């Protein structure tokens, strides 16, 4: 009895591997009104950019079979406001370290954000999102080109002592190539996957349903793709992986960890059921016991043996 569900990420020990994913938990405030979010392993804040952004026009949301599309387009108040207001205020309802998700349209913007966050005690990990469909570097998204990915990694690493996790895009021919490039450039860990590029059409209007035409697919539909990518990347790198994409149950958490994730993030499922992370954390020890797991850390990557 007494399953150990704690995990660790680059020196940071988490009570459990459950982390709400960036963009699906805001800055935690709305959820903190529903339950004490200090039970979470950590959470990843909404992707922040150097400058404030409105994001894309609406509709930004569409439903798909076992999933959803979003084209929020990185709406955020900009890193300065996030650093001074949001993160400062967060202490009132969350007393653990958070993951700061940052994005940019140029290397300089990533660097600006990382620098700004470097001195903030509260931040455990900086998660560098190079996989948002809107972010471009020389015509190709940073996340779809190994050289650009490495470049961002190096630049960000140079300006902060915080552990840096690069968040990878699944919209690539070979995700291990990008993963290895990031590892070689000094990344402390990897987060994968971001959303798959998808689309829906409004049959009555005969137009793309989302104002942005395309959007990012997430939710249970993408789970097998995410799992495959975590499995492949685990074989290609030595740095820890935060696995995500479609997780919506304690069994999914265990499956993702067996594929190679040291911790997991949960996105779309928190939008469908705001209590899902709490429920999963409560369920994890039982599910582990059923599968004769006494320490969750033992199963990381176990499917490879």
């Amino acid at each position, binding site marked *: 009895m007494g399953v150990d569900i704690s995990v660790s990420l680059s020196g940071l020990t988490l009570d459990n591997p459950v982390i709400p994913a960036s963009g699906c938990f*805001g800055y935690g405030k*709305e959820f903190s009104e*529903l339950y004490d979010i200090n039970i979470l392993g950590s959470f990843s804040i909404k992707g922040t950019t150097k400058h404030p952004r409105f*994001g894309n026009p609406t*509709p930004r*949301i569409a439903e798909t079979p076992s999933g959803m599309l*979003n084209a929020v387009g990185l709406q955020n108040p900009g890193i300065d406001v996030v650093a001074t207001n949001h993160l400062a205020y967060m202490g009132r309802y969350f007393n653990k370290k958070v993951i700061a998700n940052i994005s940019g349209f140029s290397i300089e913007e990533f660097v600006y954000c990382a620098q700004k966050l470097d001195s903030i005690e509260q931040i455990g990990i900086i998660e560098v999102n190079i996989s948002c469909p809107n972010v471009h570097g020389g015509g190709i998204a940073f996340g779809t080109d190994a050289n650009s990915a490495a470049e961002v990694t190096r630049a960000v690493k140079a300006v902060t002592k915080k552990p840096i996790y690069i968040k990878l895009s699944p919209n690539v021919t070979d995700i291990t190539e990008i993963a290895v490039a990031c590892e070689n450039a000094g990344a402390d860990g990897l987060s994968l996957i971001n959303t798959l590029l998808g689309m829906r059409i409004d049959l009555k209007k005969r137009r793309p349903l989302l104002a942005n035409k395309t959007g990012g697919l997430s939710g249970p539909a993408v789970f097998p793709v995410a799992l495959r990518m975590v499995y492949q990347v685990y074989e290609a790198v030595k740095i820890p992986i935060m696995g995500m994409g479609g997780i919506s149950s304690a069994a999914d958490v265990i499956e993702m960890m067996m594929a190679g994730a040291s911790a997991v993030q949960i996105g779309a499922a928190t939008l469908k059921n705001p209590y899902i992370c709490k429920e999963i954390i409560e369920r994890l020890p039982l599910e582990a016991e059923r599968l004769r797991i006494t320490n969750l850390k033992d199963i990381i990557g176990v499917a490879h043996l």
Partner: protein
Amino acid sequence: MVVKYRILSNTHIAKDIYEMCLSGNTEKITNSGQFINIQLDGFFLRRPISVCDITDDGLIIIYKILGDGTRYMSTLSAGDKLDAVTGLGNGFDIKKSGNKPLLIGGGVGVPPLYLLAKRLIAVGKTPSVILGFGCADEVFYKESFEALGCETVVTTVDGSMGVKGFVTDAVKGFDYDYIFTCGPPLMLKAVYDKTQTDGQFSFEERMACAIGACMGCTCRTKKGYKRLCKDGPVLSREEIIWE
């Protein structure tokens, strides 16, 4: 707050329109114009539906079959469970109302105005009501508003009941100093243009979380970006930006 409601009844009350009575906790629902977000088996996202009335042990919603989700809802029956996140949105602020409020609803924009009317009456400000529909088959709740004691005018696009035309064609007949309105975007814009008083407008947007966390439903207003699920769905005339 997530509540597991029990369905008491699910009644076909007009063309494609159903009234569903639910039993369960309503403590988080403080204002008219708020909504609940309903989970449906086999659908990933929840469906936002306005609170039409609060009853002794639950609430009433009215919905229209628009797509697969609402079609599925129409197949549910008494005794079935319904999981919903409840007490969402700001709702109407009746304190800001003048003394002669006019409520203007179009289609499934009508339901939230019913609880609003009751709340206004409770503070001594019995509203007048305009209900707009496509045709007579689609009309619902006319008698319910009348039973509250509201002067109620129905408009239908084809003239098959009441005033022929749009809700705005009925506005001139009323003496009012404030409006509350809910309905399709084109109607809201027309009401905005054809009325001059202060007022509150309830908007629709596609939502994911509906609790203000995902930024799925943001709109620009003169008072900054607002999340229609949390800072809305009701906006005041002076803050609205039409895009």
